[in-house]
């Protein structure tokens, strides 16, 4: 069957690639027209032959990140193994056939099904990873409360508070020297390029120009617990995270209860309501149980090497109450603390005077953090800003 597809005349192949690109685009891959042209010329170069070659030719053009592999694979199988799919796609542009198309395509990824069924061809290059995680949600236990949290319900007072936080918090995390230089009035090293230019202008001397290392904030990674026990605080924390994300670059934000979700891109919207709305849609375990251990493991294995580079600081916002008394928790914390410049734990429970680290989760986590702070109200959040101001410095192991 594949042969009959690919042995069609050249004009037909170009057309097919165009439709295929449209399918991928609808499924969330960033496939621009330039890429389509490249793909067509690529296919012309390798010639029309084995389907495997066609696969990798299109793969190299249309796939940008490894996590797009599965979507591409499914789309490819679907599109190039079934010659009628194109007609179906065209049919899907008409609302009447939409239902039929969706029913038939039950087996495949939801995103792809939506892409084919939907008359809209959206260009959403950034939404890939989150949506894939979303699919996995059905495999989890009933302990997870699948619930749409309504941010509309936020009281006026709360909103005002949140705005005050946003206004006040500018997170003065101390910056660290980088290995790049900027010009300076005086300094330890001579900027030869500038000096030479000045020498050409000056009459009979060589005026020395200096440079000094540029300073920059280290990246900040925030892991926020949104489980049931944290529900009173997590909303405030989300505002906090939104404020930080929009204040500085290189912030990565995650939320977790039973699963870890990267919400960095959702927080990127200037408007806090739009951002939180997006998060409510993307996150499925609001107020569920907590599985800190497995979420941290997910983070360590899948994210830490991608976001903890360049001396990042990690902030955990959690009460440390782990429903699943995981023995792996301590181990995961140790791994995390070893890969970050500094690990700060913000715990809202700390405000109780009688607070003791009795819960097994807390006992497992506590030995591995560099700083342990409370944050149950606005004042303590403001305090946090001050603490972070001193956190740019590093543990002795990282000193340089």
């Amino acid at each position, binding site marked *: 069957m594949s042969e009959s597809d690919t042995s069609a005349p050249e004009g037909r192949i170009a057309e097919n690639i165009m439709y295929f690109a449209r399918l991928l685009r609808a499924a969330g891959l*960033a496939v*621009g027209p*330039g*890429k389509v042209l*490249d793909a067509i*010329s*690529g296919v012309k*170069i*390798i010639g029309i032959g084995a389907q*495997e*070659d066609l*696969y*990798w*030719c299109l*793969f*190299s*053009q249309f*796939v*940008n*990140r*490894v996590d797009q*592999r599965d979507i591409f694979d499914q789309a490819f199988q679907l599109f190039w193994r079934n010659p009628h799919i194109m007609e179906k796609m065209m049919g899907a542009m008409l609302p009447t056939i939409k239902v039929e198309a969706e029913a038939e395509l039950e087996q495949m990824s939801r995103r792809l099904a939506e892409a084919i069924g939907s008359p809209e061809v959206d260009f959403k*290059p950034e939404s890939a990873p989150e949506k894939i995680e979303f699919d996995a949600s059905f495999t989890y236990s009933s302990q997870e409360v699948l619930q749409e949290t309504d941010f509309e319900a936020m009281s006026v007072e709360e909103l005002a508070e949140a705005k005050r936080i946003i206004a006040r918090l500018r997170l003065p995390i101390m910056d660290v020297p*980088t*290995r*790049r*230089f900027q010009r300076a009035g005086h300094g330890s090293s001579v900027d*030869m*390029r500038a*000096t*030479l230019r000045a*020498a*050409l*202008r000056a009459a*009979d001397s*060589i005026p020395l120009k200096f440079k000094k290392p540029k300073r920059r904030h280290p990246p900040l990674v925030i892991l926020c617990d949104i489980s049931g026990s944290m529900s009173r605080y997590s909303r405030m924390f989300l505002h906090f995270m939104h404020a930080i994300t929009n204040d500085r670059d290189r912030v990565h934000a995650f939320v977790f209860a039973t699963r870890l979700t990267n919400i960095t891109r959702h927080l990127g919207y200037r408007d806090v309501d739009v951002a939180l709305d997006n998060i409510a849609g993307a996150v499925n375990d609001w107020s569920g149980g907590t599985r800190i251990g497995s979420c941290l493991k997910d983070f*360590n*294995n899948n994210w830490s*090497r*991608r*976001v903890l*580079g*360049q001396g990042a600081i990690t902030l955990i916002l959690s009460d440390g109450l782990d429903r699943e008394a995981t023995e792996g928790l301590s*181990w995961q914390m*140790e*791994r995390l603390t070893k890969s970050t410049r500094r690990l700060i734990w913000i715990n809202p429970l700390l405000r109780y005077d009688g607070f003791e680290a009795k819960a097994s989760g807390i006992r497992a986590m506590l030995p591995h953090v560099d700083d342990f702070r409370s944050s149950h109200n606005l004042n303590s959040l403001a305090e946090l800003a001050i603490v972070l101001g001193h956190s740019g410095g590093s543990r002795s192991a990282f000193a340089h």
Partner: protein
Amino acid sequence: MTLSLPESIEDTLVLLNQGDYIADRSLATTLFLALKMGRPLFLEGEAGVGKTEIAKVLSHSLGRKLVRLQCYEGLDISSAVYEWNYSRQMIEIRLAEAAGNIDRDNLSTDVFSEEFLIERPLLQALRKDDAGPPVLLIDELDRTDEPFEAYLLEILSDYQISIPEVGTIKAAQSPIVIITSNRTREIHDALKRRCLYHWVDYPNAERELEIVAAKLPDINKRLSEQVVAFVQGLREKDLFKLPGIAETLDWADALTQLDQVALDSDAIDNTLGALLKYQDDIARIRGSEAAKLLDQVKAQLSDLNVASG
């Protein structure tokens, strides 16, 4: 030795094979396209799967010069692209002054001309080479920072470099560009868009065996089978850092140096450091876990032998 670019995917496979690089057809397809279309090849994958090696093999098999740029945090133009030769410029100015020739405008154009330029890898890669356009390897791009990545855009799309004082230097023939990333951070889409993307995966057992045989021709066959099966088994485990091909080769080599002809529990425990690079991973595998895996491997291989014999 092949000196012309491959004409088909099969040619590309042969070319890589000549350099002892056992490649998937998928990689060969992408590489062939990159060469044919004159696009940079963007290789992403875990550490130790042979990304850098591709560039080396390519330059060797094609007989081209290899220009390597190792990326690091803070990499800037003066170490990646060009630098002015300050001492020569200084002397030039002094000479001009001593000769009483102090027409400063002329002096400025004289001193900031290509003659006083020290070429760094990226600029070198654009220069004409008798053996043909060089292979430019931009290694571990994820280690550098975003500004440098943005700087690369001009080079990668038009193969040209703009130097404010001199103007634009354009490559006579576009170099073969290979970019690798370990994915310690995401590279911007704008850069990836200009490249052909390929994810280099861990090889399957069969291919890994071929690689071991190609790289370590003297190794005992039984040992290499066991080593590969063991490593393949390890990759199924839940480890922080899975062993790459480089580790497999190191380990196989280590075992050969110790005169092992077959795997046993003691040998594994003693040499696990060649394979796993995190203490937690080693602690987890060493001892009973390794012994269990070894039994599996042995059972699996004897099944295979029975089936084939």
